[in-house]
Every structure is written in C-alpha cells, then in structure tokens.
C-alpha cells in the first residue's frame, strides 16, 4: 500500500514541478508588473506635482577632469616608408588638415598625424561623399598617394591608431622585417583593379516560379522556358570561367602579381581581380585591358586605379 503511494508520488513529481514552474512564472510576472506600476506612478507624480517652496539650487556638477582639458591624443598611422624617403611638406592630415609627421626607427619611418580617438568615430550608415567616413577614408588614401609619389609606401589599414611615439617605434620594430621585404616588392608598382561584370541589359527575361509570373503560360511552355533558363545559366558560368582565364592570361605578361579579390559566377560581379603593375608596363597593361573590354559577349570589363598597393600588403599572421 505505501509502496503504491510512493510510486504514484514519484510519478507525479515531473507534472507537479512543471505546474509549479508555470505558477511561479505567472507570479513573477505579476510581481514585476506591480514593481513597474509603482515606479511609473512615482515618476508620474514627481513630474505632475508642483514644487512647493523655494526652488532648490541645482546640484553642483562634479568634474573629474576640468572641462577645458583636451581628450588624450594618439597617433594615426597611414603607412610605412623607408626612413630616407623625402615626403612632400604639404600632405594634409586626415582629421584637421594639420601637418603629417613621421616616427623614424633605423631605416624605416611610420607616417603619422596627431588625432583624438573620438575624431575617428564614424556613422557606417552615412556613405555619402560628404559623410565623415568618406572624408576620413579619402584623407587616408590621399596621404598615402601623396607619399607614394616620392617612393614606395606600405599602406596600413584605414583606422590604425597607436598610443604614442614609443608605440609607433614598437610597431616598426615588430614588423620591420616584413615591411622591408614588402617595400622592396611593391617598389615601382601600382595596383589596378579589373572586374568582369555581367551586363544587365543582356540578362534574359525569365519566367519566375511564382504563380503570378506564370499567368498565360501553359505548363509545358513553362517547363521548356525553365529548362532554357537553366541552360543559359550553365552556359553563362562556362563563359565566365573562360573569360576569367582569357583575362588573366592576357594581362599577366604586364604585371608582377595578380590576385583574386572576389566575385562569383552566379552574381553580377563574376570576377574581381587586382594586379600589381610596374610603372613602365602600365601603358601596355591598360591597352590590353581596354582591348579585352568588349571582347566578351554579355560581360563587361571594368578597370579601376591606379591604387596604392592596398590588396598586396600584409604584416604578420593577424592579417585578414
């Protein structure tokens, strides 16, 4: 008899616990609601009830730091050059147009300008040409380009900031070997971008799979059109692969390095390539690229540049 009771009790435990949990949740909600109600009422009363008697003076504001103190400054880093590179005097800094400086360690120099970290805060949603991000990114790019007119510059990623000159020297010391090797590699070259894009007006009109897009099309006709669309797609992929091969084979003689930045056969950007081109080969490179321009049916070739060798530099294994 007592064994049966025990057994029944044990069997009931999960249900009871589940029910208790439900009840506890309900009560917690109710209690939280009460607390919130109190808080809201308190706020409402505080705002609604007029203050009687003489107004209390506002509490004095306590400043840990005097207000006129400048926030701590740091150094924005643009790129690495050899120490004896003669920079133009008039390269403007990206934040305030002030002068660009250098921190030198042995045979290398880091191009820097003073910056307050809050000056680098940007709104990623504002991609207009007059936006903060555009101004800063153009400033970074302009400084690297201006210096590159005098000799090789290893561009750092936009937004690189070090605390002070000691940190700048530490950067040069830690990455010196890699920087020297890359400065030799990129000397006398510039980066050019070449994209293979699908021409939008050549996109064939397709019958979609949604019923609204199939009005007036018989089942057989629909299937036939779908099959054609699939075939066209497969052809396009083959064409894209062939175009990519032709593109690289044609341009390779004029470049020292080539890498694929992106693109995929299924998208409108089929191929996004970057080339490192020696200055003396630029004319031939551009002529070859222009000649390719209209050679692919359904595809266009877009050239951009010249760029500092952004896509061809990296420091250490932390590189993305």
């Amino acid at each position: 008899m007592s064994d049966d009771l025990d057994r029944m009790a044990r069997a009931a435990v999960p249900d009871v616990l589940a029910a208790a949990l439900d009840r506890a949740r309900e009560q917690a909600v109710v209690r939280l609601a009460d607390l919130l109600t109190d808080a809201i009422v308190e706020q409402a009363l505080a705002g609604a009830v007029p203050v009687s008697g003489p107004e209390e003076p506002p509490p004095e504001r306590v400043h840990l730091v005097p207000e006129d103190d400048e926030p701590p400054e740091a150094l924005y880093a643009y790129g690495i050059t050899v120490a004896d590179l003669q920079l133009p005097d008039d390269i403007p800094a990206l934040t305030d147009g002030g002068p660009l400086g250098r921190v030198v360690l042995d045979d290398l120099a880091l191009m820097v300008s003073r910056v307050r970290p809050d000056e680098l805060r940007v709104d990623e949603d504002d991609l207009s040409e007059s936006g903060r991000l555009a101004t800063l990114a153009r400033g970074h790019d302009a400084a690297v380009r201006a210096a590159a007119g005098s000799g090789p510059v290893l561009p750092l990623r936009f937004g690189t900031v070090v605390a002070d000159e000691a940190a700048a020297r530490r950067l040069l010391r830690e990455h010196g070997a890699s920087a020297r090797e890359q400065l030799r590699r990129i000397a006398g070259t510039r980066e050019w971008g070449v994209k293979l894009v699908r021409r939008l007006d050549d996109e064939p009109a397709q019958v979609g799979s949604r019923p609204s897009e199939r009005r007036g099309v018989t089942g057989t006709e629909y299937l036939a059109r779908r099959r054609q669309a699939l075939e066209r797609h497969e052809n396009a992929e083959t064409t894209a692969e062939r175009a990519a091969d032709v593109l690289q084979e044609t341009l390779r003689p004029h470049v020292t390095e080539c890498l694929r930045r992106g693109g995929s056969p299924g998208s409108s950007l089929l191929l996004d390539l970057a080339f490192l081109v020696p200055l003396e080969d630029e004319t031939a490179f551009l002529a070859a690229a222009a000649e390719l321009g209209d050679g692919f049916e359904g595809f266009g070739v877009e050239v951009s540049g010249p760029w500092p060798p952004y896509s061809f530099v990296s420091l250490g294994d932390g590189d993305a």
Partner: protein
Amino acid sequence: MRERPGILGGDARGTSLVELLDRVVHRGAYVSGDVTICLAGIDLVRLDLRLLLTAVADSAGEVHR
C-alpha cells in the same frame, strides 16, 4: 566603363567611394591589436551591410536607367 581609370599622377577623385572603402577598410596592412589602441570606430559588419545595400541600389538604378 563605369570606373574611369584615374590619371596616372595617382589621383583618387575618379574612384567611387565604395571601391575606396573596399580597399582602405578591408585591405591595407593590418597591425595586430597589441600595438594599436583602436581601429577607428567602425562597425565592419554594419559597413559591409551598407556597402552591399549601396551596390544593390546602384545596380537597380542601372536597370531603370
């Protein structure tokens, strides 16, 4: 050709902002965090999303032109 090559003097005025950001924000030598104090206040995920939307809007504009 949408992207005119810049003049050979190396001016960036002819380049689109999207292409510029694609290079300066995503490329360029990255220096690991123990030397740098910050990498600007950029939310890369947010920026990528915005760049994507801009690209989509651009190609939609081309279709309707």
